């Protein structure tokens, strides 16, 4: 198919398309397999070379081979052509391949539309503020490309970019209106591909020595909390995740069977709070111990973990309340107690021996005290414990004596079970960092923690945190102060200089505001906002009316601007007419044939009080209109101002 001359792409428009392709596909480099980025980059370079040397475009069969080869590569890499990552990879490849066959303006339109589409795909991976800014800039560039395509060769790059900026700015009011008023449909509309939510970090439902230590090295935010009242004391902030009751010698597991319902007796008034969980792909809500009121679509399981019906695979907000002092299951099911006394048939003989020795003639409270005293006296809290052998807990308790919270929790629970006290490991987070700027408590992955719970007759399940015995500062001030310098903690939380901390607080507060108000704008928030605007109980119909009228107003405003014709003519003459209007208001009309000097003479006769001021206007007017300079506009304007 040949291209008509006027539809052909002019040579100097092509670099804009290269820039578009680069700006919209390059950020995917960060999470794509390397070979794919290399292929895409090579195709872009090929297209540029081809343009530079002005050589013929590759033939149809070659392009076909490229498409087939690229698709086969993607199929091999992702095992599908459709999921999220494979789909994005296909788009990136097509984008760069399309550059090899740019002939007509229509080809260019395909590139531009694909470019706009690719912008969206970046949000699948990140919706942070920097991504937003980068994509806004990329959109500006793509729009400039579009203008360049239709403006022809006469448009200069700077003007094109400026005009694109004007268009994008004018589009922003529409975006705001649509963003606020467009009826939000809670997604997903259909099952998401299985790779939709990969790569999220968080607690897992098992615990082995080292699993939490690894998580702690991640500075990402796990969740943010805003309390209705004052911040509770730090050492009470235990955020409960999975409770692990089964031990196979090295790994602690969740009990998957049926659990009796938890009987909770709260001993202190409830504290209300709102938590915003980052996606972690598990179902627990990481509620503050002990949760007394839960959001809809969630429940409390037998081990006091708040569980959501669906996995938390995107940032979500929940309202909860907690009672800091409580009693849990004072009368426990014997099956549960049996489960929490079980130890593997063999292994860790020294630990068992020690526990048996403690059990003889001691009350449970005394056994617990002995264990904590042991930890306190001889143990070190570190992220880098030595490797443990086959009898891990023996090795830890009697030889290395260095470990992280999961070592202490595991050893403590093993000791307790050996001494006949029902005990279990609780995973979750402890503490958090209070940001004074926006009053949010930020809990990071580095606050991940494991502790123990023991069951005592008459008291139910009681929290015992062996880490507190080893390193009290971990609980009271946070992990950064509890570890020796040089431990592999995230840079972010190691920096303790005040100005860095203030900067970080500010950045995180901005991010949080972004998350809460923009990313977290959901049907619920939309209803709240509309109620505040005086539109309570909105349904889609009233939303559509509001949306339609707002957009109509915007369009009308823009049309007014488009149809508005600037006043024509010499500014001096316009100013003179303004002066005449002033005179007319004072009942002195100027006849069409009257010269300014004649008029001035008449004003002196009829309105002597105006004469002096008007004479100045006439002088300034004559100089401005007939003088050989542009400098007198201001004099004239001032003279007219005095006429008033």
């Amino acid at each position, binding site marked *: 198919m040949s291209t008509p001359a006027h539809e052909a792409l002019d040579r100097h428009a092509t670099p804009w398309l290269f820039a578009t392709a680069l700006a919209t596909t390059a950020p995917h480099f960060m999470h794509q397999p390397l070979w794919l980025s290399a292929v895409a980059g090579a195709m872009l370079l090929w297209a540029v070379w081809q343009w530079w040397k002005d050589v013929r475009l590759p033939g149809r069969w070659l392009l076909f081979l490229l498409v087939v080869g690229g698709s086969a590569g993607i199929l091999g890499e992702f095992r599908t052509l459709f999921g999220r990552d494979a789909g994005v990879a296909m788009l990136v490849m097509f984008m760069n391949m399309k550059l090899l066959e740019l002939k007509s303006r229509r080809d260019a*339109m395909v590139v531009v539309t694909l470019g706009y589409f690719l912008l969206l795909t970046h*949000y699948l991976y990140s919706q942070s503020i920097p991504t937003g800014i980068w994509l806004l800039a990329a959109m500006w560039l793509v729009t400039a490309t579009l203008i360049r395509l239709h*403006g022809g060769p006469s448009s200069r790059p700077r003007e094109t970019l400026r005009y694109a900026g004007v268009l994008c700015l004018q589009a922003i009011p*529409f*975006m705001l209106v649509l963003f606020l008023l467009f009826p939000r449909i809670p997604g997903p509309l259909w099952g998401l591909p299985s790779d939709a939510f990969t790569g999220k970090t968080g607690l897992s439902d098992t615990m082995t020595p080292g699993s939490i230590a690894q998580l702690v090295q991640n500075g990402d935010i796990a969740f943010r909390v805003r309390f209705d009242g004052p911040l509770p004391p730090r050492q009470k902030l235990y955020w409960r995740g999975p409770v692990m009751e089964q031990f196979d010698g090295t790994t602690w597991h969740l009990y998957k069977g049926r659990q009796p319902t938890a009987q909770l007796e709260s001993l202190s008034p409830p504290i209300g709070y709102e938590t915003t969980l980052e996606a972690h792909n598990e179902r627990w809500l990481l509620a503050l111990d002990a949760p007394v009121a839960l959001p809809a679509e969630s429940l409390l399981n037998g081990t006091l973990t708040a569980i959501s019906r669906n996995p938390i695979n995107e940032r979500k907000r929940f309202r909860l309340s907690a009672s800091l002092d409580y009693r849990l299951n004072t009368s426990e099911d014997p099956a549960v107690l049996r489960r929490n006394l079980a130890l593997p048939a063999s292994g860790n003989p020294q630990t068992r021996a020690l526990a048996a020795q403690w059990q003889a003639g001691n009350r449970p409270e005394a056994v617990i005290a002995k264990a904590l005293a042991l930890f306190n006296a001889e143990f070190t809290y570190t992220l880098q414990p030595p490797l443990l052998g086959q009898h891990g807990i023996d090795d830890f308790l009697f030889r290395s004596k260095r470990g992280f919270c999961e070592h202490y929790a595991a050893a403590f629970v093993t000791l307790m079970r050996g001494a006949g006290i029902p005990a279990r490991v609780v995973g979750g987070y402890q503490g958090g960092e209070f940001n004074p700027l926006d009053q949010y408590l930020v809990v990071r992955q580095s606050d991940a923690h494991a502790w123990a719970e023991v069951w005592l007759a008459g008291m139910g399940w009681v929290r015992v945190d062996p880490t507190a015995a080893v390193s009290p500062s971990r609980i009271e001030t946070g992990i950064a102060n509890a570890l020796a310098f040089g431990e592999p903690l995230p840079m972010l939380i190691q920096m303790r200089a005040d100005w860095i901390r203030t900067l970080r607080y500010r950045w995180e507060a901005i991010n949080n505001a972004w998350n809460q108000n923009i990313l977290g704008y959901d049907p619920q928030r939309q209803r709240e906002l509309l109620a505040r605007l005086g539109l309570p109980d909105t349904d889609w119909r009233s939303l559509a009316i509001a949306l339609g009228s707002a957009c109509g107003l*915007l369009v009308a405003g*823009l049309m007014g601007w488009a149809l508005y014709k600037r006043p024509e003519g010499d500014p001096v003459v316009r100013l003179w007419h303004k002066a005449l209007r002033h005179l007319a208001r004072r009942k002195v009309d100027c006849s069409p044939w009257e010269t300014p000097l004649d008029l001035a003479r008449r004003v002196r006769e009829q309105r002597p009080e105006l004469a002096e001021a008007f004479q100045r206007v006439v002088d300034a007017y004559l100089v401005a209109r007939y003088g050989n300079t542009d400098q007198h506009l201001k004099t004239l304007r001032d003279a007219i101002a005095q006429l008033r």
Partner: protein
Amino acid sequence: MGIVATLQQKLFRWRSDGTAPLRLGQRRIFIIPSRGGLLYALALVVMLIGAINYNLALGHALVFLLAGLGIVGMIHTFRNLHGLIVTPGRSAPVFAGETAHFQITLDNDRPTPRPGLELEAESGNPVSATVNRKKGAKLKIPVSTQNRGWLDLPRIRLSTRYPLGLFTAWAYLQPAMRCLVYPQPIAAPLPLASPTPVGGERSGDGGQEDFAGFRERQPADSPRHVAWKASARNAGEGPLLIKQFAGGAQVELMLDWQLTDPVLADETRIGILTGWVLAADAADAHYGLRLPGVDIPAGSGERHRQRCLEALALCLP
């Protein structure tokens, strides 16, 4: 007038706009999404579904921003035509089969340029234009010709897709312009010149040889014939003077309808006569033209040639 014709007139201005300059108002301008615009809209719908499905707040924002951009683009496309001033110009006569060029001036009194304009009288043959800020652009619209006679400028479509190409805005123009189409010349040997001057003893005017005196210059006279020295004598007071020559015993060539073969079709005969006129003019001959109902006395020069060709273009045998 039928309903269709009325509608055409009301909606599409299927009638002459006269010869006066014309400013495009909003009632003349039509706008619909272009093919690129439909592709864009489709992409937006898919993107919106994606944004809902993956619950991407920024995806929503992007889609809404792009939708806003589309609306803004529509208004800017409309604005690229709105207020443009169209002034009909001239058109030089052409021979049938050649392409006639109608000159049209587009004026922009806005302080921003208007790129990406396209004017099209026949589909598939548009003229592109950019009118710079506060400037005018003279354009020649090509129209192919077939028959001799007056060719009226067909309805012109003035369209633009600038800036974003998502919408096509257009206006129909029909300025009263026509172009004279001369018959297509057919090459044939000139008839023999008649040795006796036609018209008796009268010596032809406008010869080239003997100086015969001065006369006042008329607008049709070539500046080359102005007697500058003689005119300068009364230094700008009187009119410019033209030297007149008398031809003396010049041979006159009368190109007569009767000289062509009567068995040929009328149009062929006219074509032959046209060829003769061109050949005689090229040979700098002194020639006249006689057609049914038309008699042009012998003469020569550009004006004479035009007169003959015009008579041939409009002749009704």
